[in-house]
């Protein structure tokens, strides 16, 4: 049976970008999760700046440190991807460039996240 919904009903609440308020909400969600995670991250960097190879590896092998740093990377990378997308959409008006940069904007956080999580796991599991 054909879709009985009117065209207006289909798009209601989704807006012209078909994404609704999801982008806005996730930006706020990750902004809130970033706050405690970044405070921890800054504290960690300040506390271990200038430490030796052994001290840093012992600290990073602690489950609490590894988990919180891993979560900090995931939360921050998601947040920064959303933010950069808005900047690209605001300033890049050429369609080809815009699509290309939005693709790169997805790849970059994933690559940074892969490097960070691989490193944390390798240290945590004593590689």
């Amino acid at each position, binding site marked *: 049976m054909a879709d009985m919904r009117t065209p207006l009903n289909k798009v209601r609440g989704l807006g012209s970008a078909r994404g609704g308020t999801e982008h806005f909400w996730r930006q706020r969600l990750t902004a809130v999760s970033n706050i405690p995670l970044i405070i921890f991250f*800054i504290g960690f960097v*300040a506390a271990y*700046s*200038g430490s030796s190879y052994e001290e840093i590896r012992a600290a990073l092998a602690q489950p609490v440190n590894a988990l919180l740093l891993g979560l900090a990377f995931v939360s921050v990378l998601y947040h*920064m991807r959303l*933010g950069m997308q808005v*900047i690209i959409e605001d300033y890049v008006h050429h369609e080809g460039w815009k699509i290309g940069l939005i693709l790169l904007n997805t790849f970059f956080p994933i690559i940074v996240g892969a490097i960070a999580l691989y*490193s*944390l796991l*390798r240290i945590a599991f004593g590689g």
Partner: protein
Amino acid sequence: MSKSTTQARPLSPHLQIYRFTPTMAMSIAHRITGTALYFGILLFALWLLAAAGSREQFDFVNGLFGSIIGRIIIFGYSWVLIHHMLGGIRHLIWDTIHGLEKETSRRLAIANLIGSILVTLIIWGGAWAIRGGL
């Protein structure tokens, strides 16, 4: 497309026509700091990668971070990060429909700048006091 849409249309006033205000400066700063943090996080991922590698790899990367230029970058990065976080908290306050009045938002913008400098100095001052050096 009809002819009327291809003719030059009047443009709305852009940034440079308005008087410069603290809220405007902090709004621009929020985007600039966000962009700097976006690329800067790669440095920390590479630092972790070095820590996951051999002692030689770690000492090489840690040596770069510990150099004068490296320390300036880390200090600057922490200030930019705190500035962006305080700016973000300001946005979260605005999301609750508070602090939007002209005078309040102006004060919040100035507090954002002064607060970011103070918090950065307190953090590194604290780290210096506890560890006896940076």
